């Protein structure tokens, strides 16, 4: 009987490497697409492929919970917010045909290279805690315990950060039309004008 444990033994180290390259082969073109597509909304949709690929990598590392969270939050939630923001700010949905400014190219290349070197060195560095022991099947329980005991403080800080962002967004979005006297006067004038016009129309 094909059981999960049997499958796990089947998926040897070798197979994992092959799968990794397969996922990379799918994900990297998506990432390039996000950068190179001139149609900015399509680039936004391509992000789904990138995030989906990353979630597949998490699955390969047997981090099921992270993979699902990645899919739910990044591949769907974040991408949708990005795409909708793009649609609202670029309502004509035209391709961006303006030529890129040459003065920006050199600093952009510099920052990109520096970032790449920093990430590369971080990946090569020691201290990733490589251990080959098998993960327990209920690692969700372990994640839960550590989030609420050892990492309780960062966890709480993350929630406070989100709360601040939420309150800030509400404050920015809240258009208080009637908070200043000038506004009220303006509106009164407008209504007066409109009513006069209406009277005129009625007379005619």
């Amino acid at each position, binding site marked *: 009987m094909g059981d999960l444990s049997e499958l796990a033994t089947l998926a040897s180290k070798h197979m994992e490497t092959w799968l990794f390259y397969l996922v990379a082969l799918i994900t990297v073109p998506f990432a390039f697409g996000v950068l190179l597509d001139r149609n900015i*909304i399509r680039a936004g949709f391509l992000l*789904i492929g990138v995030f989906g690929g990353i979630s597949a990598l998490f699955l390969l590392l047997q981090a099921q919970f992270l993979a699902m969270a990645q*899919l739910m939050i990044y591949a769907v939630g974040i991408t*949708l917010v990005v795409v909708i923001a793009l*649609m609202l700010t670029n309502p004509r949905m035209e391709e961006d045909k303006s030529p890129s400014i040459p003065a920006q190219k050199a600093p952009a290349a510099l920052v990109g290279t520096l970032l790449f070197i920093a990430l590369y060195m971080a990946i090569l560095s020691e201290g990733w805690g490589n251990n080959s022991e098998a993960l327990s099947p209920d690692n969700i329980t372990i994640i839960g315990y550590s989030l609420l005991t050892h990492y309780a403080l960062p966890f709480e800080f993350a929630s406070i950060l989100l709360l601040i962002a939420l309150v800030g967004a509400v404050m920015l979005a809240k258009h208080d039309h009637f908070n200043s006297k000038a506004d009220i006067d303006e509106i009164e004038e407008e209504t007066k004008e409109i009513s006069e016009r209406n009277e005129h129309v009625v007379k005619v």
Partner: protein
Amino acid sequence: MTSSAVPYNLNEIGKFFLLSGVWLGIIFGAVWAACWAVGMLVPQLILNAYPNDPCALNVANAIRLLTPLVGVMVFIPINAMYMVLAERRGLALFTVRKGPNRVGPDGFLQTAADAVKLLFKENINPHGGDVLMFTLAPIIFFAPSVFGAIPLLAAVTSNHDLFKIVNLPTGIFYVLAMSSIPVVGIVMGGWASNNKYSLVGGLRSAAQAISYEIPLVLAIITTCFLVGSLDVVNIAQMQKGTDNLASFGFLNWNFFGAGAIPHYLDLLMQGKLEGAQVVTSAFWSLALAFCCILLCGIYLTGACAEINRIPFDLPEAESELVSGYNTEYSGIRFAIFFLAEFTNLFIVSTVAVVMWFGGGATPFPGFLDANTFASIATPFNQALAQAGLPPLMDGQTMSGAFWAIFKTYALVYFAILVRGTLPRFRIDQLLDFGWKKLIPLSLILLLAVTYIRELV
């Protein structure tokens, strides 16, 4: 109302039941036969043809692993056909009409004919639209619902050997993650159509899905928290009632406070409660049951909004947006959207059944349970055994599947009833209701359940 109206409608209700019975028989006969063929018959034939061959064993096992996928693939198209027909006939019942009644005997084949018609229609790409995205959108809308449904198979078949593999430790979280993807398909289709109505439909769908996903997930999390597991098979099995009072039949479902009420009744009958305890304990048990019923209600409301059904079908509000995000679609792409919509309705109902209504457990102990179905299955299995074939069914799985289907369709009919009853929300009312009522309510319930379950 004339005096002849009542018997006329009774007649129609009878026809509706007959139609449901026939179609459900077709659906589950086909699915059962396909699963049996792929999971039992073909592997056995391979093993008989090449005994003692390790390669044949591997092939047979690989085919066996495909059973859940084949089951779902056979199930989805036939099920959608039935559900569309049931919805049209059901709505006709509520509005005292006849509904589709021409194609085939009494309209039984209406949706089959519709499906064939849709498949042969021309695919039209809108002028100025993004063809690639336009084609991908229905697929992104449909595919996740297929994969998302698979873990539920293990829960509703009492963890049958063939379906064990699809049971994940992240269970319900996986289902939720998968069922959140289709919104992307709607937004994509709406944008790629190069049509204002479609775009507005897509944007509405995104706003709606994001706001209603929060109460929906909170309701499920609270229930998981009460049960102490994310594993769908675990959750379903924990609700299985027995015939002793401490976990009696349907009272043991999560819908009635995850066993709080039968536990209280048991303590009361045994006389273990004294004085004021009788009242306080009853109060807390009832409070927990009330919280659970509210959670189930929040889930069903959120699910209705997630899958764009009336009263939350703003993405395709035909009085304002022609047909919303699928205005430009025709032919098989439109059929896929349609298929996915009904499949999603079925899946959210199944999730509700697994989370709150006991999965495949019988509501009354001893009523149509594993033993009854085992006695039905025996003659079939004996006949097959004489022909040298593997057994067709076992009582445990049969009873699980029967009850899960029964409960799921009960919820589907409830959704049809809601569709026939409620008017459509306005978009601002919809967002107000989601953010200002449902989310606070679900947060309060999370807190309340945390404390009450300690007091019960």
